[in-house]
């Protein structure tokens, strides 16, 4: 009897072990219908706080339960890939346009045109919608967008008598003038312009702003055909110019700099200009308020003046296509309620001058906020660029493309550019390597 009991207990333990995974899956099924799970990459405190507040408000309005999960940007593709593989994708995801492209390529999100119509399509800045378009449909609802500009020290420009540069030659000359040895010890204390080349995302972001300024794209914006391979000569020129900037006007350690380093450098006054999406303002407001009014921005000029496009992106809400018709309707309604002008403006204002709301009505509220009061000219410049210029995120020149997430999740751009900066290979070889890698990514996607 005792032995039989021992055997029984052991068998029960084994069955628990072996079938643990299965039972978890079955248990998760009914829970998903009761609760809306939302993933967001916004782990910055201020943004996450506003999102959580709004999600809680909307959940209370609708009488549903909501769970917000923050996924750091660096872990996004790892988590998304495993979630897609295991079939446990969130109900709603708040992610960047590249993340949206990835989810679209996996065929797991809904087209959101009906919700956009319900919110009011005319109120959306049309270029925001265009980025999320594929096959004539819109696969996410743009929340806000960011635009890369050159943020600079107005006081130093004035002190050195520098005018806003209109082409690359002027830009380099301005940066050289801004290499400042403050204490006369023969060492540069303020560098003109950092070239951050951290291989994880930052290097391609820096490089693409210059590529777009010179007219080089991954894909043809009109036809969607791969074009980088046929523009290699131009890409070499861009690489040479960028590395020249690195060697002459950028701190040597910037080869490893990521977002924090170059933003802090401007805010702390150890560089005079930097490419950025405006996050320097929030950082200055928090860490060095005296610097805020000294900062201004201008669009990086084109190679010879005329600029074909800029680097920019944004965040969107996407909805998974899993679940019953009722569940899908609930998710869509949840999103719809997030798009009042006030809520859209509040989300963008959680990161002032970095995030620009997707609704015209929200932009009006945004402009009146005290946190951006000093930057009306800059808001006008950036809003104008959003509406009247071309802006793309790497690989998304022709709309949603998984190439964007492939570039974002790999480090080959950084590796190639760092090699040139360190004199380990020529710019021609680096561009050949980038071309070969891009073509390999295309073959993987296809």
């Amino acid at each position, binding site marked *: 009897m005792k032995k039989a009991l021992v055997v029984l207990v052991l068998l029960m333990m*084994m069955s628990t072990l*072996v079938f643990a995974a299965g039972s978890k899956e079955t248990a998760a099924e009914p829970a998903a219908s009761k609760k809306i799970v939302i993933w967001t990459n916004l782990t910055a405190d201020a943004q996450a706080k506003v999102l959580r507040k709004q999600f809680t408000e909307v959940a209370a309005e609708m009488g549903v339960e909501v769970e917000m999960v923050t996924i750091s940007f660096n872990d996004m593709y790892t988590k998304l890939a495993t979630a897609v593989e295991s079939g446990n994708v969130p109900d709603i995801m708040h992610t960047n346009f590249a993340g949206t492209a990835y989810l679209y390529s996996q065929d797991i999100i809904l087209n959101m045109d009906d919700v956009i119509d319900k919110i009011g399509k005319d109120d959306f800045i049309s270029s925001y919608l265009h980025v999320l378009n594929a096959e004539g449909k819109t696969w996410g609802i743009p929340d806000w967008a960011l635009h890369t500009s050159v943020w600079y020290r107005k006081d130093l420009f004035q002190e050195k008598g520098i005018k806003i540069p209109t082409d690359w030659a002027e830009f380099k000359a301005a940066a050289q003038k801004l290499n400042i040895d403050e204490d006369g010890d023969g060492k540069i204390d303020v560098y003109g312009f950092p070239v951050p080349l951290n291989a994880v995302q930052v290097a391609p972001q820096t490089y693409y702003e210059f590529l777009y300024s010179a007219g080089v794209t991954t894909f043809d914006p009109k036809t969607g055909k791969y074009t980088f391979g046929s523009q290699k000569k131009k890409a070499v020129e861009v690489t040479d110019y960028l590395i020249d900037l690195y060697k002459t006007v950028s701190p040597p350690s910037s080869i490893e700099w990521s977002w924090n380093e170059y933003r802090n450098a401007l805010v702390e006054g150890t560089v005079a200009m930097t490419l950025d999406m405006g996050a320097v303002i929030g950082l200055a407001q928090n860490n060095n308020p005296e610097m805020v009014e000294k900062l201004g921005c201008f669009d990086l000029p084109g190679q010879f003046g005329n600029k074909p496009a800029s680097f920019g992106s944004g965040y969107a809400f996407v909805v998974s296509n899993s679940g019953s018709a009722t569940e899908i309707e609930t998710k869509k309604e949840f999103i719809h309620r997030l798009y009042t002008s006030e809520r859209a403006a509040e989300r963008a204002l959680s990161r002032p001058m970095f995030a620009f709301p997707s609704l015209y009505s929200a932009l009006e509220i945004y402009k009146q906020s005290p946190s951006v009061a000093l930057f009306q000219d800059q808001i006008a410049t950036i809003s104008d660029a959003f509406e009247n210029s071309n802006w793309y995120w790497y690989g998304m020149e022709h709309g949603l493309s998984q190439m964007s997430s492939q570039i974002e*999740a790999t480090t080959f751009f950084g590796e190639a550019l760092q090699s040139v900066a360190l004199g380990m290979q020529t710019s021609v070889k680096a561009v050949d390597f980038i071309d070969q890698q891009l073509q390999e990514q295309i073959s*993987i996607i296809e």
Partner: protein
Amino acid sequence: MGNLRLIRQDRRFRPQQQTLGIIFIIPMVAFLLVFVVYPVLYNIFLSFTNARLIKKDYSFINFDNYKKIFTDLRFLTYVKNTVVWTVASVINRKSSGTGLRSFLLIPYVVPAVAIALVTKWVMNGDYGIISYWFQTLGLIEHRQSPLAIPGSAMAVLVIVNVWRSYPFPMLIYWATLKGIDKELYEAASVDGAGTIQSFLHITLPHLRDTTIVLVVLRIVWTATYFDLPWLITGGGPAGSTTHLPIMIYQASFGTFQTGYASSLSVILGLSLFLCVVFYVRKTISNDSGR
């Protein structure tokens, strides 16, 4: 008579004991089958396919993944980085430590993320204290960071890794040293042996098995260690700290090529297996030759 009864009782109980023994080991065998044997076999299987995380379908491509690996010039660089990283970390860790044990245990309980953040902070070219010292001593340029220079970035990683994982061998050696019979030293002393002779002829031989195990474990753990290099340098600058685990990670979650990543991990696994077998056999044959 009494002994005979005992033997008879043993025989009578053996089949039941065996059954019970088998039942007891079934959970572990099931665990190993599910979490070790199956993943390894599946990994080998995937290495002969063009499986990708972003596509459900895949096909067999024979040895194409392996051909691609061995024709990729970067692979050799990354193998070299892996060898430097592993060998430097293992060799530097072989010395044993005694005093200040509690203090020395600190790095073992600090999370890799915290170590990485502190390392990046102190190595920052603008405000990092270590970079500042190096700049002041003229070892690196003004506003340069050791993490932005290929050779020194790897050196920093190795030093941090040695510091982080030092306590484990220290504890094991300490436990082994405590287990050596003190009478052996007393006897050696009576026979006129000095400290060095006692160390060479008593302490070291007693540490031999521990050292073999530690070196094997360290080779495997270090060669497959991903966290610190990824968090501190991300494999840079210019791929100078990219080792095979980073390459595998990039292939899996960067380009989503699970088949290719599987081939890389098979190569890494096989190389480690061969290294370990070679090392253990070499050590045993050296000892038996003495």
